[in-house]
């Protein structure tokens, strides 16, 4: 008895969509416990989303249709990416061939671009500041991602995420390879930036001048705001999945289409994501937020790691 492939494909998207707010909840909970607080329950993000969905949606005066369309487009993008990456299975699913790592990256940046444009539509200084900053720093993180992709391409000869995950599983020599470790570390630093975690941004902050990602949906409200929040948690889980299932620990994925294996893969992914969430919560609690113009240094460090990864492979033969 095995599940039809399209069902597994749908399950990949569903897992990301349903579990994403929960991962944020786990991080918030662990962070609170580390600070000696009791913290919100893990399901709190779901309740927040439900509450927002019941509220009235308002648009600023003068904003065009794009302002309201942006959250839908962004969420659509986030729902597309799980089709391309190994979420549950170690074997590529049919739609996984639609795009490689770069393709996934493009879709993620499209989502972020659409949200930034919607923030510009509003005319609100905070939202505009946020989108301007997000795009400024994204221009520096993009090269890092590119170099990580180059590393993957040099290691596997393709840039399909499934191929890298298989390569990492293939031997211990692949894991201790410096290029692999450097690319993984660089990607982790990019993820810290992209998900707006310390040392780049305070995640749970209210109004403050250091805001980047959090400032962009300022003018959205009601269900649209819920979509944006849900989208950002999905983006977080997608990036976690790429790091975990492609680079860091590509084990525990289903090798067959049997329901038990797929179910186990879901549990494994959630467990791994929660583990990564704990690590991120610890980082959140151990570092101060960088001042805005120090973020370039943080990204420069990530860039250095990824460039060194390519050097050791391409010039050093490591």
């Amino acid at each position, binding site marked *: 008895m095995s599940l039809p492939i399209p069902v597994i494909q749908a399950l990949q998207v569903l897992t990301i969509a349903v579990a994403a707010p929960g991962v944020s909840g786990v991080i918030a909970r662990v962070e609170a416990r580390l600070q000696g607080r009791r913290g919100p329950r893990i399901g709190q993000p779901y309740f927040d989303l439900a509450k927002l969905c019941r509220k009235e949606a308002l648009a600023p005066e003068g904003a065009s249709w794009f302002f309201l369309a942006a959250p839908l487009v962004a969420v659509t993008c986030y729902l597309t990416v799980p089709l391309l990456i190994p979420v549950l299975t170690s074997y590529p699913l049919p739609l996984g061939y639609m795009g490689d790592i770069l393709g996934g990256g493009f879709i993620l940046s499209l989502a972020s671009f659409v949200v930034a444009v919607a923030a510009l539509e509003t005319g609100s200084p905070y939202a505009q500041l946020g989108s301007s900053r997000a795009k400024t720093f994204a221009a520096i993180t993009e090269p890092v991602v590119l170099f990580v992709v180059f590393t993957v391409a040099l290691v596997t000869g393709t840039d399909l995420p499934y*191929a890298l995950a298989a390569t990492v599983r293939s031997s211990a020599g692949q894991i201790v390879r410096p290029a692999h470790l450097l690319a993984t570390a660089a990607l982790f630093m990019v993820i810290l930036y992209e998900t707006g975690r310390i040392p780049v941004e305070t995640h749970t902050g209210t109004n403050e001048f250091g805001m980047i990602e959090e400032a962009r949906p300022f003018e959205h409200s009601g269900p649209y705001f819920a979509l944006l929040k849900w989208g950002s948690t999905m983006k977080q889980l997608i990036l976690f999945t790429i790091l975990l299932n492609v680079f860091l620990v590509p084990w525990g994925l289903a090798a067959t289409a049997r329901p038990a294996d797929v179910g186990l893969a879901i549990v494994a992914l959630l467990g791994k994501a929660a583990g990564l969430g704990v690590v991120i919560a610890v980082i959140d609690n151990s570092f101060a937020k960088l001042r805005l*113009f120090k973020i*370039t240094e943080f990204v420069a460090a990530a860039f250095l790691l990824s460039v060194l990864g390519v050097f*050791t492979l391409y*010039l050093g033969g490591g």
Partner: protein
Amino acid sequence: MTTAWLAAQHGPAVQHGPEALAAAHGVPSVFGGSANVVAVVVLLLEFGMFRQALLRDQIRLYAAQSAAVSVLAVIVAAARHVPELYVLAALSAALKVVIVPLVMRRLLRGAGDDSAGSGALSLASVGWGGGVEASGGWGGGVEASGGWGGGVEASRGWGGGAGASTLLLATAAGAFGFFAVGTLGIAGVTLPQAALSLAMAVVLVAFVLMIVRRDVVSQAVGFFSLENGVSLAALVIAAHMPLILEVAFLFDLLVAVIVFGVLIRVHHGLSESLSTAGLTRLRG
């Protein structure tokens, strides 16, 4: 390549996963890979020293780097059966992890000034030490420390761009090291070639560090870490070198420490600062 991989995937192998197709060519062995990783750590710590503004932390990073080199010596000794290297590792650990940092810290305490000078290319003052090793390199009081002779220091770069430019310069120097070793085609017997490239990169980045920094302690640390790069290269090319020679090199380092110690004392006594920027005014 992509199409070939896809074509292979569409076969009956889909259900078995692409493990069989994982690129197997050019994979270093586990020993080679871990040796390379330690060499990469040495290089990253060099970059950490490059960015670190607090002299105390810079010395700490130097000790960590020396420890990494000793660990690599132990790895080579164990994997390649060169028992002399255990002795060398122990000696170099004692000297470079314990004694040299101790001496430097004592000198620093005498000088009573803890923040590194700005660079010729206006090194941003607070750095992310090393990037990976969760650095606590957040010097709080760096801005507060004054007492740098001369107005040269007015251009202490706070802009991330200026700091990034020196980092890019160092990265380019490191890339040149990789490129040079690749062109020369030297192959070590005990370690993979990437380790030699990394050693060369460490030496070149140490050079850039010494050029960019404008204070005696940083320059001394740069010089000592350069020696770490050289011992790394020696491990790659000539692990079977007679022990007496290796030890002689180590004692060379001791001489350098004494010379730098005297230099720091004399310089601090003369100019009341660790910065070498004031030296231009002492002429004539």
